[in-house]
Structures are given as structure tokens and as C-alpha cells.
């Protein structure tokens, strides 16, 4: 049985349909890449899965149980959502912001305990944020801020992490770090749905891809199945160039982090 299952999810804004009966499923330990051109409905689908917006029609189940029947906090413990653009209202410290990720595990009268503190410390190390933990969030660069927000989602230790373009503000090295962290999250038995624009990263890291186009699923399966010339032409209106396929114009793609693999 799938961990998360969405059936015929539809949503319109006024007369404009955004999602037109999309199916989606996620297995335990799986990393699913949602790809597609701008306006395909990827972020909207992710927001529906996160429970931030409700679909006009369709059904969403978690372990076979309707998601809408779960209390807010119980759902938040199992599904974490990393927003595409997040503006922090107050210049709180990095550590305080990451700490907020433990909120779904705390009762209203509880504060962060030793066990929570251990998880927070581990994630701060994993995300390479030790040097920034006392800094105010607004003094960090865009890439550093993106890592803080990822750390905030990781400390929740969710069964499912939904990440909307988590690498779009990062340099190539940190893009690979973030993708590796998402993979690690999967390897520890959890699942990830990640929206990506970088098709090479999607092919390299995701177990499975789902290509959305104009609110419907155009293709779904392994990267070899999905990323073919026809699908990419239909969805993106682009022609495909294989890496190193043209000796005169070699294509450079970030593929692996050198110093960490040594």
C-alpha cells in the first residue's frame, strides 16, 4: 500500500483550471521528483498534499486514512512542507527558527527538551549551519537561508517531506548537499516529494519522476522513461542535448560533490 495516495485531485481558480484530475502516489523510502514547466501545477499539487489548500475534488489518503480526518498537529508531525519562497517576519536567530520545526511534537505547555535538542544539533551539523546558529536569519545570504529552512523541515523528522524548489537559490555545491540530504532522509525510511526545475538533478537523485503539464500528468516513471525527447518537447518545448554530446559546445552539469566523495 502506498504511504500517500492522491486520486483525481482537481483545483480551479475562478474559471481557470490549475489541476485537472491528477493522481499521485508515494511509497515509503521513495524520492519522487515533480517536474514540469512554470504554471504546470507542481506547487499547487504540493500545497494540496501539505494540507495548506483544499482541492475542489479528489481524494487524499495517508496510510489509507483520509488526510482531512487527521488533526492538524498529527498531520504536521507526519508531513513537513518546505515552501518555495518564505519570508521570515522577524529577525530571529537561526537556531530559534530551526527549533520551531519541533513544534508539531510538542504539547502547548511543553518546551523543547533534551531529545529535541539532540535532533536539532544533529540537523544543524548535517546542514552545515554550525557557524550560523546564533546569527539573525535576515543577515544570511539567500543560499544560507534556504539551508536554514530545510533544517527547520528536517528537524520535524516527518514521514514525508514536501520540498518546493529547495535548491533554486543555491550554488552548485550546496545544491548537491541539499539533494544528498533529501536522499539521506529517504534512506532512513522516510519519503520525499521534491519539485525541481533542474532535470539533471531530478534524474540523478529521484527514484521516480512525475512530469506535469497544464494541470495533468504527462508522464510518470523512471527518469529514462520520463525524460525522453517527445515528453520534453511536449512539456517544455525544448530539444534535448545530452551532456558531452556536442564536442564543440560541451555541456557542464553538476554531477557529484568532489571533496565529499573523496
Amino acid at each position, binding site marked *: 500500500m502506498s504511504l500517500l495516495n492522491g486520486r483525481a485531485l482537481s483545483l480551479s481558480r475562478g474559471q481557470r483550471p490549475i489541476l485537472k484530475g491528477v493522481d499521485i502516489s508515494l511509497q515509503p523510502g521513495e524520492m519522487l521528483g515533480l517536474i514540469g514547466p512554470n504554471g504546470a501545477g507542481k506547487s499547487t499539487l504540493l*500545497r494540496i498534499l*501539505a*494540507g*495548506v489548500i483544499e482541492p475542489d475534488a479528489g481524494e487524499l489518503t495517508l496510510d489509507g486514512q483520509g488526510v482531512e480526518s487527521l488533526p*492538524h*498537529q498529527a*498531520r*504536521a*508531525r507526519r*508531513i*513537513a*512542507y518546505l*515552501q518555495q519562497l*518564505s*519570508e*521570515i*517576519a*522577524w*529577525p*530571529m*536567530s537561526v537556531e*530559534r*527558527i530551526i527549533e*520551531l*520545526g519541533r*513544534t*508539531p511534537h*510538542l504539547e*502547548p*505547555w511543553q518546551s523543547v527538551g533534551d531529545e529535541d535538542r539532540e535532533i536539532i544539533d544533529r540537523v544543524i551539523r548535517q546542514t552545515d549551519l554550525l557557524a550560523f546558529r546564533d546569527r*539573525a536569519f*535576515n543577515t544570511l545570504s539567500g543560499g544560507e537561508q534556504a539551508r536554514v*529552512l530545510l533544517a*527547520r523541515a528536517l528537524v*520535524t523528522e516527518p514521514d514525508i517531506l514536501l520540498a518546493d524548489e529547495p535548491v533554486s537559490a543555491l550554488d552548485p555545491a550546496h545544491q548537491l548537499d541539499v539533494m544528498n540530504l533529501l536522499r539521506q532522509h529517504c534512506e532512513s525510511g522516510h519519503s520525499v516529494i521534491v519539485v525541481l526545475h533542474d532535470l539533471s538533478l531530478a534524474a540523478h537523485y529521484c527514484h521516480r519522476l512525475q512530469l506535469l503539464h497544464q494541470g495533468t500528468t504527462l508522464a510518470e516513471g523512471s527518469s529514462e522513461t520520463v525524460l525522453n525527447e517527445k515528453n520534453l518537447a511536449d512539456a517544455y518545448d525544448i530539444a534535448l542535448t545530452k551532456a558531452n554530446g556536442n564536442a564543440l559546445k560541451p555541456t557542464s552539469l553538476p554531477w557529484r560533490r568532489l571533496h565529499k566523495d573523496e
Partner: protein
Amino acid sequence: MIAAIRQHRLMLSLGGAIVITALLSLTIGSQPLPLMQALQESFGEKPGVYSLILTELRIPRTLVALLAGASLGLCGAVMQSLLRNPLASPGLVGSASGAALGAVITLYFGVAGLFAYALPLGGMAGALLATLTAYLLAGRDGGTLTLILAGVAVNAFALALVSLLLNLAPSPYAVQEIALWMLGSLANVSRNELWILLPGTLLGWLLIWRQGRPLDLLTLGEETASSMGADLPNLKRRLFLAVALAVGSAISVTGAIGFIGLVVPHLLRPLVGYQPSRLLLPSAMGGALLLMLADMGVRLLPVQGEIKVGVVTSLIGAPFFLWLILHHRGRGV
């Protein structure tokens, strides 16, 4: 850990300052009050003039300043955190202007003179009605900007109606009565006002109790907060009602008192690491302290009659707020 120690120190300092200011507030006034003698008289067989001043005037006045100031400071912190906007004041969604309109209506139609509770009850009804209107205008799922705009519209309409009533007032005496009430004062506060203030204030505070954590989550944005378990429609409803009750009760008794709800959270926010949940209690304490100090200040000023406390808070608050903006602008906060 260090943050927790710093927070405790801040609360202890504010608590100590409140106790000292409250004791001083009992002794200061047109008639200096020997506190020990007044206390002895109060517990003696035959109450004297000092005990009457203490129990009928000074204690109610001090307690009303403490409670109303605390409500303004607390609700300022709540509104700024809820709307994620440092310029939000407790009255932004209509509670203060609604209370003013409700109270002015009772003054205009002469109902205020019929029984003691008429004016504050009118004020509270106005605060609740104005807040409800702003809430309904913004809609159940209204975003922050929609809420602020709805509040601005309701405030503008309520203040326009107040102006209309001033314009149509039947006599110069009525105009003066309305205008003086609107300046905000604790001069004529008695035990009655304290009892009127208490229920709405306590109920409002109770509704805010333990809502700090969802306010912390709102720092990350509405969608993220919602995905992390915050029930935002319920939170907004609850906090709007709380602010309407607490601020409505305060303004109904004291008249319009500006800037406390805006300035106090600003002043204290850096001291609590900018975290909304840690700001609530210190803001309440800071508001109480500031209003008590301002009220003591108006009693000490060597002028004929007494300057209204609402005038003093605005006179101090506005330049201070300007200084804060200039101070923070350089730091990019």
C-alpha cells in the same frame, strides 16, 4: 539557556519596576498620601480621609492603569505577531475606534448620564461590533493584507462617524464632553470603572493564554504555519475576539490612549530574541509600567488642571517611535 536566563531577568526587572511604580502611584497626587497612615486607617475601626483616598481613588486608579496598560501592550504584541507587521497597533482591526464610537454615541444621545455603566458598555459594544465587521469583511480565510485593509476601512468609517457626531452635537458642552473623553484620562476612575474593566480584560487575556506557539509559527509565513499544525482561521477568530474584549474594555474606561500598544512591543522585541511567544508577557508588563508612569507624570506636571494621560502617551510615544524607526533603519531590522 542564555536566552531563558535573559528572559527571566527581563521579567524580574519589569516586575520590580511595576511594584515600585504602583506603590509610588498610590502616594502621588493633588493630595500627597502617607501610605502607612492610610493603610492603618483602612484596617482600623473608623476609616479616615486618607483611607478613603487610598481605597476609593488611588487603588482603583493604579489598578486601572495597570490593567489597561497591560492589555494595550499585550494586544499590541498579539496584533503585530498575528499580522506579521511591526506597524500594527492593538486598535488596527477596529477595537479602539469602535470603542470610541460606541462611547461617543452614549455621550451624544445622553445615555451616558442615565447610569454609570452606560458609557463603558457602549464602548465595549462598539469595539466588538467594529472588530466583527473587520473580521467579516476580510473573510474567514482572509490573508494578512486583507485583514489590515479591512481594519483600516472600519477604523476610517468609525472615526468618520465620531466626527459626524461631533459635528452634529447639540451644544458646545456636548462637544467638549466628547472631545475630552477622547483624549484619554484616568483622572475620574473609581471602583466602578475597575469592575467594568475587569471581566472583559480577564476574558481577553484568557483567550490569548497559550497562543504564543502558533504566533511563533506565523513568523515563517501563513502557509508554513498552517502546514506545521497551526489552525489559522481559529487562531484569528480567537485573537480578534480577545483584542476586542481587552482593548475595548480598556478604551471604554480610559478613553483613547495611543502608542502604548505600538511602542512597547517594539522596545522589548530585541530583548526577547524577536520571538513572538516570548514577547507577550513582557509586553503586558511593559504596557502596565508605561501607563502607570504616564499617569503619575500627569499628576506631577506643574500645570493648572490635569493634562490628559492619552495626550502624554502620544506626545512621548510618537517621537520615541520615530527614534526607533531611525535606530532600526541603520541595522536593516
